[in-house]
């Protein structure tokens, strides 16, 4: 089509009504002239007119053909189909609503899951210059078959890794939460320590000022900081901040620049509020760390980023990094000979994704999430099957209408086009409703999964909207193609001949198959839901050995308040006393190792060559009331008291499991261990620490860890004045008391110091998150799937009963009792469901192999669960077919017979 023709068509399209009238007049004129000529040849006027008309042929068809030249006939056809579809849907609002709601649920589930997954794993970080070439470095070791993956390294390791040859440019980052600001305005904020080489990884010119340079990435240099656009807006009203001073932790920084809006660097979740040179981070740590971070490998805190050169493959980069890692281990071994031999742990490096959720150690949560996404896809399939079945039923009902239209000359292609248009219209409406649903439901899922405060506005999110559109289009094709084929294949003559009898029962194998498929998928999802619910239950029922519910954790930050060792001890006594004085606090204790953040020290026990070969032994250092705060029961012996102080003989309480491991068959009480707490201290040169008590086993390293080797040391003997965190046991639930505790403790803090409080149960709940996630989402989607399937089953049986009303009437006339008719219909529904359940359970059994690692103390092929789900679904099927069955039983033989 030339441009000129296109304009011509467009112009004609706008005038098409006038053109049509002119055309009619023109044809009329032609007939007139022809008739006059015929008259002249001797025909009578009347005959001439008839002959002229006959010769003219089908005037309407000519007008229609001409119309094809005006405008764009294909487009016009689409518009017509659309109008036709809208009219049709408006005529059957119940059908329309059911389809849109079903598709909305299916599409909504997928959109919500994609939105979360995309943010967690796929979406490139903003401002990254070369997203495909920018990596986070992961280091892995495998010891005795267990692989551990790490992304946080000592600073010296970063330096050695960045010397890896021919890889690209390296940068370092480290995330912290520090108090920022001074006085009342100070808040705990996310602070990122980054190397000067970090900024060139991004295409993000500063909103104001500049970024820092290599010479400023030095502890000795004047400390400079870059603040986020958000902090600049909220705290400085976007004024001139360059040159202003900002206190971060205990260090006064000078602001030199502002990062652009939405800049998160390469960190997960929210934008850091302040970026500082990474080598100034140790200024906020102990004097010991400040000295050792450039000299030793005892502190893991730096993440390494690399922008791969375009000519270097990922594998080559990983190989080069692995070599650097091995060099770094050799350097570390020169300082600390206890670094394990490479031949034992197979050290290797991976240039992996910047987003750790997509990395080699994504964790249980990410894996559960991938499964749930698969589940969402299944929900959409079920929804599509349901809609396809509804549309098939509709097509079968409209078969006569369709046949008549075919007989009148509508092309089959055009007819199929109409069904697809109808499907698309429904799917787009369903998609819009789905996005709204996803926005609403996604906020809840986001709460479970994404870092707090991540933006989640789907209407502005083109990637997610694209997925919604793809889902809708896919759904439209799946649901419309079946009916389109069935409708256009219908045999004209046979259907027209069948005559008035609409009640003929028309079996539809396609619908049967769809229903069985739906039922099978629902059964599969419900089994998954049950497995995760049981896993979550098992995880929650694990005896932790303590009771965290009424406990509040309070971590103090003295923000560089100057203290010598004597005032430090006095200060911590004062804080403990302040905690004990808070009304509602039953017990309070200071402690060292936070829950699931356990520490180990070198141990020596007489008669055992290598204690570390027996496993990992975690220690806790605390004040005496720790056992009462955590409600850890002593099996035998006693716990330490204030009397076990400095100068008194050293004492320790060990867990039952640890006692059994170290002294099998003997009484641990009275035994001696030597503890090497402290930097590079050799336990063999330490004095004897006597076991005075045996405590219940507690889950402090992990909920599921086994064995639980723990030992407890008194604060005054091992870390006098060195404990920064408090635990408070309250009368009520911990989470209701937070603000009161925080205020009371803050009041007792000196200088700019402050306290961060958190219910300890939160820490415990975090550990069962993956199962909670699986349980919540599987149950939600499983229930959704069951609902959709039951509605589908009900619809199908109801429809069949309506179709068979004539047959039912005949049966009644022949003497069938109502109960028999009910049994017939209900039996049919149950049989259908039984077939689906069989298929679904087989699927679950097959998938069980891959789901097993995600479960906790729960077999993926638990026969009880399979049986329960099967029975439940068949019962549900029976219930769903009851109402149609009752209708069948009321069939009136008179009307059935009379209609013949």
């Amino acid at each position, binding site marked *: 089509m030339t441009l000129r*023709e296109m304009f011509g068509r467009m112009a004609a399209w706008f005038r098409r009504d006038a053109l049509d009238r002119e055309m009619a007049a*023109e044809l009329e*004129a*032609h007939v007139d*002239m022809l008739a006059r000529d015929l008259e002249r040849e001797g025909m009578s006027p009347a005959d001439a007119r008839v002959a002229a008309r006959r010769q003219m042929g089908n005037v309407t*068809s000519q007008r229609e053909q001409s119309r094809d*030249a005006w405008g764009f006939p294909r487009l016009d056809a689409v518009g017509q189909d659309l109008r036709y579809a809208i009219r049709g849907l408006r005529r059957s609002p119940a059908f329309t609503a059911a389809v849109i709601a079903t598709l909305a649920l299916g599409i909504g589930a997928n959109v919500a899951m994609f939105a979360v997954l995309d943010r967690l794993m796929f979406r490139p970080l903003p401002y990254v210059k070369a997203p495909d070439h920018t990596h986070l470095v992961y280091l892995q070791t495998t010891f005795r078959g267990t692989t551990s993956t790490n992304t946080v390294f000592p600073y010296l390791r970063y330096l050695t890794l960045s010397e890896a040859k021919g890889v690209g440019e390296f940068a370092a980052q480290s995330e912290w939460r520090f108090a920022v600001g001074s006085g009342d305005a100070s808040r705990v904020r996310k602070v990122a320590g980054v190397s000067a080489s970090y900024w060139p990884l991004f295409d993000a010119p500063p909103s104001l000022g500049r970024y820092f340079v290599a010479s400023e990435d030095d502890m000795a240099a004047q400390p400079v900081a870059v603040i986020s656009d958000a902090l600049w807006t909220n705290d400085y009203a976007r004024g001139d901040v360059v040159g202003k001073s900002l206190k971060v932790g205990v260090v006064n920084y000078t602001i030199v620049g502002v990062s652009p809006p939405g800049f998160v660097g390469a960190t997960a979740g929210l934008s850091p509020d302040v970026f500082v040179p990474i080598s100034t981070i140790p200024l906020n740590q102990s004097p010991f760390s400040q000295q050792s971070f450039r000299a030793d490998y005892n502190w893991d805190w730096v993440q390494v980023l690399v922008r791969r050169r375009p000519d270097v493959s990922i594998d080559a980069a990983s190989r080069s990094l692995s070599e650097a890692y091995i060099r770094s281990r050799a350097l570390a071994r020169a300082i600390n000979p206890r670094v394990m031999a490479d031949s034992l742990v197979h050290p290797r490096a991976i240039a992996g994704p910047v987003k750790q959720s997509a990395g080699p150690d994504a964790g249980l949560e990410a894996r559960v999430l991938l499964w749930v996404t698969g589940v969402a896809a299944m929900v959409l399939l079920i929804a599509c099957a349901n809609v396809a079945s509804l549309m098939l039923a509709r097509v079968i009902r409209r078969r006569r209408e369709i046949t008549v239209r075919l007989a009148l000359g509508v092309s089959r292609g055009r007819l199929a086009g109409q069904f697809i248009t109808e499907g698309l219209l429904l799917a787009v409406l369903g998609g819009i409703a789905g996005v709204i649903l996803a926005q609403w439901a996604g906020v809840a899922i986001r709460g479970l999964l994404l870092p707090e405060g991540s933006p989640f506005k789907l209407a502005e999110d083109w990637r997610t909207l694209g997925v919604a559109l793809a889902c809708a289009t896919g759904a439209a094709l799946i649901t419309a193609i079946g009916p389109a084929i069935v409708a256009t294949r219908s045999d004209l003559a046979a259907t027209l001949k069948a005559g008035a009898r609409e009640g003929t029962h028309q079996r539809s194998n396609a619908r049967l198959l769809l229903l069985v498929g739906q039922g099978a998928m629902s059964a599969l999802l419900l089994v998954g839901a049950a497995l995760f619910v049981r896993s979550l239950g098992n995880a929650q029922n694990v005896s932790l050995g303590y009771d965290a519910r009424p406990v509040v954790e309070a971590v103090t930050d003295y923000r560089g308040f100057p203290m010598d060792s004597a005032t430090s001890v006095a200060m911590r006594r004062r804080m403990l006393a302040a905690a004990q004085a808070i009304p509602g606090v039953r017990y309070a204790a200071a402690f060292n190792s936070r829950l699931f953040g356990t520490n180990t020290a070198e141990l020596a026990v007489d008669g055992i060559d290598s204690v570390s070969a027996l496993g990992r032994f975690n220690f806790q250092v605390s004040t005496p009331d720790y056992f009462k705060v955590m409600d850890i029961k002593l099996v035998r012996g006693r716990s330490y008291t204030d009397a076990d102080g400095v100068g008194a003989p050293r004492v320790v309480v060990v867990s039952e499991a640890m006692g059994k491991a170290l002294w099998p068959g003997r009484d641990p009480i009275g035994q001696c261990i030597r503890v090497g707490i402290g930097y590079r201290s050799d336990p063999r040169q330490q004095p004897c620490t006597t076991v005075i008590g045996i405590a219940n086993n507690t889950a402090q390293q992990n909920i599921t860890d086994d064995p639980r080797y723990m030992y407890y040391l008194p604060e005054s003997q091992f870390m006098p004045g060195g404990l920064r965190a408090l635990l408070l046991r309250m009368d009520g639930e911990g989470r209701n008391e937070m603000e009161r505790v925080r205020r009371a403790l803050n009041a007792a803090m000196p200088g700019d110091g402050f306290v961060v409080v958190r219910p300890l149960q939160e820490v415990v709940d975090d550990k069962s998150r993956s199962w909670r996630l699986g349980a919540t989402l599987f149950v939600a989607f499983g229930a959704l799937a069951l609902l959709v399937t039951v509605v589908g089953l009900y619809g199908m049986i109801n429809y069949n009963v309506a179709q068979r009303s004539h047959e039912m009437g005949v049966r009644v006339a022949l003497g069938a009792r109502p109960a028999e008719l009910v049994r017939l219909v209900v039996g049919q529904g149950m049989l259908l469901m039984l077939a689906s359940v069989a298929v679904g359970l087989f699927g679950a059994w097959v998938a069980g192999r891959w789901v097993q690692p995600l479960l906790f103390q729960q077999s993926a092929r638990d026969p009880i669960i399979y049986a329960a789900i099967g029975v439940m679904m068949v019962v549900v099927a029976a219930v769903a077919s009851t109402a149609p069955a009752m209708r069948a039983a009321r069939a009136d033989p008179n009307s059935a017979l009379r209609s013949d």
Partner: protein
Amino acid sequence: MPDETPLLAGTLDLLILKTLTMGVLHGYGIAQNIRRLSKDALRVEEGSLYPALQRMAVKGWVASEQKKTPTGREARYYRITASGRKQLGEEEASFQRSVAATTRVLKAVES
């Protein structure tokens, strides 16, 4: 009626355009002219004449206006445009080529 030969496929546009080079004509006139010029051998179906005219109008090969016939009746008169003449040239040439080629084939097989 004398023997009528159906139009060769694709020649309708060519015939209409050629006829219009003789002057401004209405649809009936075009049909009559083709018939007359072909000595009653070719007859344009009314059923395809008007849709073809519409098509050519949209492509800009012909233009039309409403005028009175000598008998005083309102009718639409068509005239060929500059781009219509160009098109006519092309179609004429391609038709001649096609006829010549076809004839060559026929002769070759005859002998």
